[in-house]
C-alpha cells in the first residue's frame, strides 16, 4: 500500500507543476502591459522601462517561467502585489484558513448529508421519501448558489435578524455561507448516490447474494453499498472542485476576505501575480484532496489493493 501511495504522490508533482506552467503561460499572453499597471497609466516611457527592469519583465519567456516556478514551488514566494506592494504569500497565509474553513465545512456537508440521503432514496426507490428527496434535489442542482445565498441573507439576516449577513467573526458568520455553498453539491451528491445504488442493486452479484440467503438489509449494506461507493466517491471529488471554484462566488456574496475574494479583486485590478498565486493555491488544495480521495479509493478497490500488496502476503495470510 505504501508503494501505491508513494506512486500517487510522485504523480501529483508533475500535475501541480503543469498547472503552474499553464497559469503562467496564460498570464504571459494576456494583452496589456503589466508595467503600466504597476507604474500607473500616466507613467513615462523611462519609468515603465525601469519597472520592467525591476520586475524582470523584459527577460525572455523561458527565463521568467523558470524564475516563476522556482520562486513559487521552492521558496513559496509569489512576489508582491503590483498595486499595493504587499507580499502575496503573507496575504495568502492570512486568507487561506478562512477559505479552508468555509470550503472544507461546505464539502463535508455535501458528502455527509447528500450521500446518505441519496443511498436511502435509492433503497426506497419510488416511495414517497425518495420522490420528495429527488424533487428537492432537482431544485438544489438548479439553483444558483449565489442567489440562494442572497435569499438566505434576505430571510435570516435582513428579515429575522438571526445571523450576520457578511464579514467574518465567530462561527455564526459561516453558517449561511456553508448552507448556500453546500446545497447544490448536497443535491447533486444525493442524485448521484441514488443512481449509483440503483445501478449496483441490479448487478448480478446482488442476485447471487440474495440466492445465498443473505437478508435484504445485509444485501444492501454489505454487498451493494460498498460497491456503490466508487461512483459516489468520484462524484464527491468532483463536488470538491465546485466548492473550490464556488468559493469565489460565496465569498463575494458574504464578503468573506478569503482567497476567492482576493482573486476576484486582483482580476478586477489586473494584479497578475495575485491571480497566479490564488489559482495555484486553489488548484493545489484541490489536487491534494484529490490525492487523498485517490488513496481512499485504493483502500476499497481490491484491484489496486491486490496489485500492490502482492500475492505473497495474501498467501501467508491464507496459510495462517
Amino acid at each position, binding site marked *: 500500500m505504501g508503494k501505491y501511495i508513494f506512486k500517487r504522490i510522485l504523480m501529483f508533482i508533475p500535475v501541480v507543476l503543469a498547472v503552474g506552467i499553464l497559469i503562467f503561460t496564460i498570464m504571459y499572453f494576456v494583452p496589456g502591459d503589466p508595467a503600466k499597471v504597476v507604474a500607473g497609466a500616466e507613467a513615462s516611457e523611462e519609468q515603465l522601462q525601469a519597472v520592467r527592469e525591476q520586475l524582470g519583465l523584459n527577460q525572455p519567456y523561458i527565463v521568467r517561467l523558470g524564475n516563476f516556478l522556482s520562486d513559487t514551488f521552492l521558496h513559496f514566494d509569489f512576489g508582491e502585489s503590483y498595486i499595493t506592494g504587499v507580499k502575496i504569500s503573507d496575504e495568502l497565509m492570512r486568507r487561506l484558513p478562512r477559505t479552508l474553513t468555509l470550503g472544507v465545512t461546505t464539502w463535508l456537508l455535501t458528502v455527509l448529508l447528500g450521500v446518505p440521503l441519496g443511498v436511502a432514496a435509492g433503497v426506497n426507490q419510488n416511495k414517497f421519501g425518495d420522490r420528495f428527496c429527488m424533487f428537492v434535489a432537482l431544485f438544489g442542482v438548479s439553483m444558483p448558489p449565489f442567489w440562494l445565498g442572497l435569499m438566505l441573507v434576505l430571510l435570516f439576516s435582513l428579515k429575522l435578524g438571526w445571523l450576520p449577513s457578511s464579514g467574518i467573526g465567530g462561527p455564526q458568520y459561516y453558517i449561511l455561507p456553508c448552507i448556500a455553498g453546500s446545497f447544490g453539491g448536497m443535491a447533486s451528491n444525493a442524485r448521484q448516490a441514488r443512481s449509483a445504488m440503483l445501478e449496483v442493486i441490479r448487478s448480478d452479484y446482488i442476485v447471487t447474494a440474495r*440466492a*445465498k440467503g443473505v437478508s435484504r438489509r445485509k444485501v444492501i449494506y454489505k*454487498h451493494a453499498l460498498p460497491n456503490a461507493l466508487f461512483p459516489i466517491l468520484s462524484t464527491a471529488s468532483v463536488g470538491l472542485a465546485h466548492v473550490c471554484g464556488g468559493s469565489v462566488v460565496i465569498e463575494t456574496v458574504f464578503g468573506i476576505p478569503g482567497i476567492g475574494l482576493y482573486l476576484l479583486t486582483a482580476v478586477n485590478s489586473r494584479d497578475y501575480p495575485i491571480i497566479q498565486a490564488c489559482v495555484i493555491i486553489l488548484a493545489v488544495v484541490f489536487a491534494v484532496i484529490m490525492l487523498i480521495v485517490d488513496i481512499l479509493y485504493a483502500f476499497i478497490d*481490491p484491484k489496486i489493493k491486490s496489485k500492490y500488496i502482492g500475492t505473497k502476503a495474501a498467501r501467508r495470510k491464507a496459510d495462517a
Partner: protein
Amino acid sequence: MSENNIFLKVRDLAVEYTSDGKVIHAVNGVSFSIDRGKTLALVGETGAGKTTIAKSILGILPDRAARIRKGQIYLDGTDLLKASENEMLKIRGRKISMVFQDPMTALNPIMKVGSQIAETIRIHDAVSKKEAKKKAADMLNLVGIPRNRYNNYPHEFSGGMKQRVIIAMALACRPELLLADEPTTALDVTIQAQVIKMIKDLRDQFNMALILITHDLGVVADIADDVAVVYAGEIVEYGSKEDIYLHPKHPYTKALFNAIPNLETDVDRLENIKGLPPDPAQLPEGCCFSPRCTYALEACTRAKSALATVENRHCCSCSRWKEIDGGNGHE
C-alpha cells in the same frame, strides 16, 4: 411413484414483468416436478422464460418489476410462494442453491472469494468464523481451486475458475436442489466440459436434485434424466431424455434437433427455425409456435391446446402431433 416422493413440484406457474408500461408474459402456466437426485433439463431459446422459472423457485425475482400471477411451487410439500421472506432466507442457499449464467459478474468484485463462500456457511450453519473459513477453503479445494487462493478477489480468476467458485458457493451448505442457469454458456468450450463434469460428479456425490437450464442439447444428453422443452414461457414438450431425443413430437422440438447438424458455428442461435420467438408482450392468441410452424393450421392460431400425453410421462402440447408424426415418421 407416490406423491410423497416428489421433492419439488411446480404447478401452473405464471410470471409477468412490467416494463416501460408494457406487461411481459415471461412464464405462462408451467408445471413440472423433480425427484431427489434426479436431473431435469429446461431447454429452449434465450428469452423463453427459463431463468424466470428458476428465479421464481428461489423467490428472487425483482420485487417491483415481476409478479407471480398464479401457481404453486411445493418443496417437500410446503408452498414456497406462500412462505414468508424469513422462511425463504433459510431455504435459499441451504435447501436450494443457484449457479448463474455469467460468472464474470456473479461474484461481488470487492469481496474475497473465500469470504463470499464463508458468508453462505455463516448464514446457514451455526459455526464459528474460523470453522466457516476452513469449510469454505475445503469447498474451494473440492472444486479444484487451491486453498491458498481464499484471499484472492474475483478479478484474479479466469471465467472458468470463477464459475468453480460460484459452484463451490452454491454447494457450500449441501443443498438438496441446485438450479444451474446456463452454467457454461459464458465459458470456453474446453472449460465447459470440465464444469459440466464437475456439476455431474458433485450431483452424484451429494445426491442433489438438479434443474439444468441450457440451450446446449449436447450437455442435456450428457447429464439429464428428464427434459422439458420451453417455448415462449410454456412447456411444449416434456419427457424422459430418451423420449425427447429419440421420439420428439412437437414441431419446435423437432426443429431444435434439426437445427444442430446444419449449424457449424453458432449452435445456440438456432437460425434454422425461421422467424423469431414471439414478443412476450404480445403473445399470439393460439399456439405460440404457430407463426413459425410449418405444420400450423388455421385452428392452431386461434386456440391453445394443453399438454397431452404421448406415452407414459412423455407429453406434448401440439394438437397435431399424431398427424405430423404419421406423416414424417421418426427422426
